[in-house]
């Protein structure tokens, strides 16, 4: 039943490795971009607040598929931006990461904002009483506590991101979902076996992430 795995025709592990790479690069990127967005949304400058709010509301309501395809069709094929990628494969990967960061950043931003809400008012008031500036209050007092409170929601964002990397299949990045599509077409007699293999792969990717970060979130949570 699983003999398609031995045929050497499909590189399942390689495809999952691309999925993992997409996840890692996008996770780091969207953590940074999401933190910047969250900073903008709580900043004293009205224009930055407006930009942050508008960006989050616009991008969060756009399908990720559209964002990723727009990166490929719009940025790369029409406008000729290839992000320094020399081959089709390299460019596709980078464009997918760019799209995933643009999209996932909004969810990181919203999670962080809800984390900022968990920091007691007295913390920020005490910091301001000491004469710290907004930037100091945010980076030294509020964000470190907020991050500790949002490990669990961020873990959910990370798991969603892992699953969302399959969208890169729409622009031809050779990750797990694209290989699954190809295998389902070629191995029509083993549909259930193919599905089982890829389902197992994703359970193995997302379950430990959830368990590990769930444990971390309990350890680092601020006891109030």
């Amino acid at each position: 039943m699983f003999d398609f795995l031995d045929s050497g025709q499909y590189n399942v592990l390689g495809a999952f490795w691309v999925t993992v790479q997409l996840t890692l690069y996008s996770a780091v990127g969207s953590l940074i971009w999401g933190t910047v967005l969250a900073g903008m949304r709580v900043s004293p400058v009205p224009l930055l607040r407006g930009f942050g709010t508008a960006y989050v509301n616009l991008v969060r309501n756009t399908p990720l598929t559209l964002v990723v395809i727009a990166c490929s069709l719009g940025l790369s094929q029409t406008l000729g931006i290839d992000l320094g990628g020399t081959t089709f494969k390299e460019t596709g990967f980078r464009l997918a990461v760019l799209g995933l960061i643009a999209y996932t950043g909004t969810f990181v931003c919203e999670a962080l904002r809800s984390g900022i809400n968990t920091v007691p008012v007295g913390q920020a008031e005490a910091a301001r009483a000491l004469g710290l500036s907004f930037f100091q209050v945010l980076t030294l007092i509020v964000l470190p506590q907020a991050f500790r409170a949002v490990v669990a929601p961020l873990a959910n964002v990370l798991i969603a991101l892992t699953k969302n990397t399959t969208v890169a299949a729409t622009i031809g990045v050779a990750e797990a979902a694209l290989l699954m599509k190809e295998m389902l077409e070629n191995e029509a007699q083993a549909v259930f076996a193919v599905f089982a293999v890829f389902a197992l792969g994703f359970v193995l990717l997302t379950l430990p992430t959830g368990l590990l970060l769930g444990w971390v979130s309990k350890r680092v949570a601020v006891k109030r």
Partner: protein
Amino acid sequence: MSSVLYDTPGPRAKVRNWIYSGIFVVLFGLVLWWALSLMGEKGQLDADKWTPFVTDSRIWTTYLIPGLMETLKAGALSMVIALPLGALLGIGRLSDHTGVRAAVGAWVEFFRAIPVLMLMLFSSALYAPQLMDVPSETRPFWAVVTGLVLYNSAVIAEIVRAGVLSLPKGQAEAAKAIGLRKGQTMTHVLLPQAVTAMLPALVSQLVVILKDTALGGALLGFAELLSMNRQIAANYSNTIATMFVIALIYIAVNFALTTLASWLEKRLRQSKKSTGAVVEGDVAEVDAGGAAGVGKAP
């Protein structure tokens, strides 16, 4: 607007804010100018690429509106099927029987861990001629709906569970005290109250479903809104303009739903009739830990 993160701006802070605003406008303007000049260079700003959306009604009647209808149809149907399924699964997870709880729990966790795209691809392969032979015209539609139902019924199960658990314990205890059975307690006491608490989360989930229908257009040949991009661009060769208009349609529909969800949430929190319990969009939300946090305006 003032916040606890910073003082109400005085004269110097106001000047500083203006300077920051100025820097931001300049940077944003540079990026915009660069993007527009690049688009202009490639001829993407030419009027004939954009005017069809205003002058040529066929672009709406043959492509955009039918596409949007397919998107809404698939989304609504998935929600309608996933809701009762999810409710059953959610109740199953709260069952007193360990076996039922474990089996339903495993089912829900399994389908929540798998990308919805893979479920769609799998359904599409199942409906292929060799196995179930769904007619090829409707196969993409049903594959998309099946994938969405499998995934979202698991998500809705979690929402239902969170909704029931958000109710005060006294509700179930009082029901038990007046002699209701377990089933009666669930259908007459817990679920009706949980539904109101779940509404915002369910509306948010509808947005997720609508966004996910786009996957079917990209990989399964489902003729929904996003897939119209290819056909319109083939006729008018205006990829960027079409993408732009399609994105606006998605944003308009989803933004309306998101606004509805947060309005519902606000109403429920303030309402005196309900328990004030709300299941938020993201099921495993961070514990809000007190009403007066830093980010809220005083």
